[in-house]
């Protein structure tokens, strides 16, 4: 542990470890900086846990693509995840999503989502039952649209569920389920037509 001092680089440095080299059973409350996960970790009496509830995993910017494939993002480290996104499109589109394993989309007709939409043109129910993807947002060509989505148990051998919200001109709130028990390790986001530009970020919910 140390305190770095000096113009422009002052700060507190806790013990530096990796998840492999950290102490196995230190005193309750010990704080370390874990370099392989880039997180602050606290020993919580019987196990290590992240100092923050939501931990950034990965993300990227994209430009004019027809699909975003994200591989190896779901692991046993986290059970539940949050995806945030902000996209623009050159035409009005539906933003869709599939789960992925081993670098391949699962496109079976096992995705279901129910929700509610509202916007300047009206409001109503959303219902997509046993279709080959979830619909997670509507993007207007007139302005960027941001949204977030929680995914539950994608890497657990049980049915993955999600809920999310997005939209400006057409807002949606929805819940969904994938009727398989596959352990997925990635996902794909894609517009139903044309391309999207913007960025996405994935976070893991700390398990302890």
């Amino acid at each position, binding site marked *: 542990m140390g305190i770095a001092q000096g113009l422009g680089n002052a700060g507190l440095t806790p013990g530096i470890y990796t998840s492999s080299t950290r102490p196995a059973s230190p005193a309750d409350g010990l704080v370390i900086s874990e370099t392989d996960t880039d997180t602050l970790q606290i020993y919580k009496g019987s196990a290590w846990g992240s100092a923050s509830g939501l931990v950034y995993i990965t993300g990227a910017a*994209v430009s004019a693509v027809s*699909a975003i494939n994200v*591989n190896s993002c779901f692991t046993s480290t986290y059970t539940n995840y949050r995806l945030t996104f902000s996209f623009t499109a050159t035409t009005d589109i539906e933003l869709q999503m599939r789960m992925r394993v081993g670098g391949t989309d699962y496109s079976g007709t096992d995705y279901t989502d129910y929700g509610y939409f509202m916007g300047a043109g009206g409001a109503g129910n959303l219902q997509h039952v046993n279709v080959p993807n979830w619909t997670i947002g509507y993007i207007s060509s007139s302005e960027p649209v941001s949204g977030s989505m929680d995914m539950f148990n994608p890497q657990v051998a049980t049915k993955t569920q999600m809920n999310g919200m997005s939209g400006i001109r057409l807002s949606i709130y929805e819940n969904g389920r994938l009727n398989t028990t596959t352990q997925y390790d*990635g996902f794909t986001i894609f517009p139903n*037509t044309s391309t999207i530009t913007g960025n996405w970020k*994935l976070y893991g919910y700390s398990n302890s």
Partner: protein
Amino acid sequence: MATKVSEHNSITGETIVRDMTAEELAQHKIDSVETETQAAALAAKALQRQALLDRLGITAEEAALLLGA
């Protein structure tokens, strides 16, 4: 113009942009047809709805009021 995919490896943090594979392109075409089919079904339903409103001689707002929506 080729259909581009952003492929992200979460372990390395590396992102590449590449053309769709033949398999991905085939699925993309299936998805596009599905989108067009859904859009056509929605358009047909909207036409049916308007035709019914015209026959009844009421507006969409009056129909919503009638149904308690």
